């Protein structure tokens, strides 16, 4: 069977990705898993300048999920290029840079630097960041703003451009259509849901940042539903995620319309998840006589 995934004229060797923020810069996992078996590694969000992130605690477990408020802590795009990328060279997995910014200009500057760096496969734009020029509402919550941002990045980006959608919106399909119009090659779906946990003995939120992003199996039904809705709205490939722990979970996303998937929180639980999911998808395809990824999309209307 053919597990290749085409996005923006390029291809990934298989549909398995590891989600931004859960896989560092890839190399953190190199002793645990042969990184080359992964279709795509999505880096921790890169910003123009290094960021230290939010005050701790940054993490708390929730029923079948977790909240995080890392706050985009990262080494910055320049250190990524000089220190991290060389270490990824031995591996054949695609490296997709996840990019964050608080102004359009910042996004563009990060993309510009990355354009000069060899070995990067494409970009995934995190539009859940608060848009400082629009009063703090995220770029990803207004279709017009999302479309404009996509258009601008499109002009600079010569590599596949993936826009990562936030689930915290009324109409995710409208955002997906907007970024498709703006020139995106694919959309990723979904980022974390907003959430909060309160420590009732301290009478304060557990996370210093108060709210955080909910991920893990708890949100899988939401991810599958939104992937399904987004796929109905756009023609470009959809990359599905949210709570994938097993091959069966990944297959749900593929059947819902995803062309590729990402594994996030599950990497913390079992570092072998990407391999297990890949093997399991292969077995499923064999058993169900599925020859290529688009075959998954014929079953559910």
């Amino acid at each position, binding site marked *: 069977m053919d597990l290749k995934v085409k996005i923006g004229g390029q291809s990934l060797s298989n549909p398995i990705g590891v989600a931004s923020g859960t896989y560092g810069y890839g190399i953190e996992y190199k002793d*645990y898993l042969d990184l080359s078996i992964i279709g795509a590694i999505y880096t921790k969000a890169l910003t123009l300048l290094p960021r230290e992130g939010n005050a701790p605690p*940054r993490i*708390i*477990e929730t029923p079948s999920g977790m909240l995080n408020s*890392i706050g985009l802590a990262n080494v910055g795009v320049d250190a990524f290029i000089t220190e991290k990328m060389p270490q990824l060279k031995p591996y054949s997995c695609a490296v997709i840079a996840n990019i964050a910014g608080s102004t359009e200009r910042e996004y563009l500057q990060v993309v510009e630097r990355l354009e000069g760096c060899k070995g990067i496969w494409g970009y995934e734009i995190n539009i859940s960041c608060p848009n400082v020029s629009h009063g703090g509402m995220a770029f990803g919550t207004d279709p017009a703003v999302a479309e404009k941002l996509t258009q601008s990045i499109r002009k600079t980006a010569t590599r596949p451009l993936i826009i990562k959608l936030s689930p915290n919106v009324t109409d995710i399909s409208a955002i997906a259509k907007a970024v498709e119009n703006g020139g995106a090659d694919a959309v990723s779906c979904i980022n974390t849901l907003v959430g909060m946990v309160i420590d009732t003995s301290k009478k304060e939120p557990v996370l210093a940042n108060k709210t955080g992003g909910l991920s893990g199996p708890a949100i899988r039904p939401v991810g599958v539903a939104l992937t399904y809705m987004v796929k109905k709205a756009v023609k470009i490939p959809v990359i599905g995620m949210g709570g994938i722990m097993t091959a069966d979970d990944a297959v749900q996303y593929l059947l819902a319309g995803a062309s590729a998937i990402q594994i996030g*929180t599950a990497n913390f*639980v*079992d570092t072998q998840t990407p391999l297990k999911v890949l093997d399991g998808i292969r077995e499923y395809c064999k058993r169900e006589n599925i020859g290529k990824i688009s075959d998954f999309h014929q079953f559910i209307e």
Partner: protein
Amino acid sequence: MKQGLTKILSNSAVQDYFHLVFKWDKSLPVPQPGQFLNLRVADSTVPLLRRPFAFSGYDANKGICSIIYQIKGRGTQILSSKKSDDTLDFTGPLGNTFLPFSSNHHNILMAGGVGLGPVLFFAEVLINRNLPFEFIFGARTKQLIPLSLLKIIPNLTLCTDDGTEGFKGTAVDFLKETDKDRLKRSTVFACGPYAMMKAAYQVCRKNGSPCYVSMEQIMACGMGACMGCVVEKKGRDGKYLRVCAEGPVFEAGEIEWT
């Protein structure tokens, strides 16, 4: 560092604690005192994340390791129900270690409550290398002292808050009463409640003694990837250190104590 499965040899209650002993094949990396494991306690999504525990000992000849833990919530509850021959799903060894330490310095090891594990392991290494140290263990009351775990320690001071055993007061109270000259020639290694480590550091700073502490923070990956487990770095300039990657052992002066 790797993810693997190993076999539990025993998991027994010792006073307030559990002492879990498990196989550690020679093929696995040698664990160092201060390092920890990240354990998946159930094949379920509740609990979801692995739980970190410091090594409390390693016997290369027998090929066994151990941890000492207390029941805090569901994860440790489930861990406590495991039996010999059950499988242990781990990643590790993770993090840095108390080593290298100066061998011509006097070493004072301090442990409070469940911070015992890594300090005990450190003591074991010092004993094996024939290096002298003193060991201070603090507990609330006599009943809570896991004597059977402490019996390998030659130079042990027990402290109880209520004076039911040994020195009456906390381990730090005892440290304060240590001969100042000796303290000045000493390096202190501490693991225990935040307040205890902070107080130990304050005593050390006053005496110019180096102080190393083993920190805790809620973890997700345990391997430096998620940026989740940070503590604030000294300097109040919004810099952070990852407990799992830069730690868990820190020179206490590196930390911005709150």
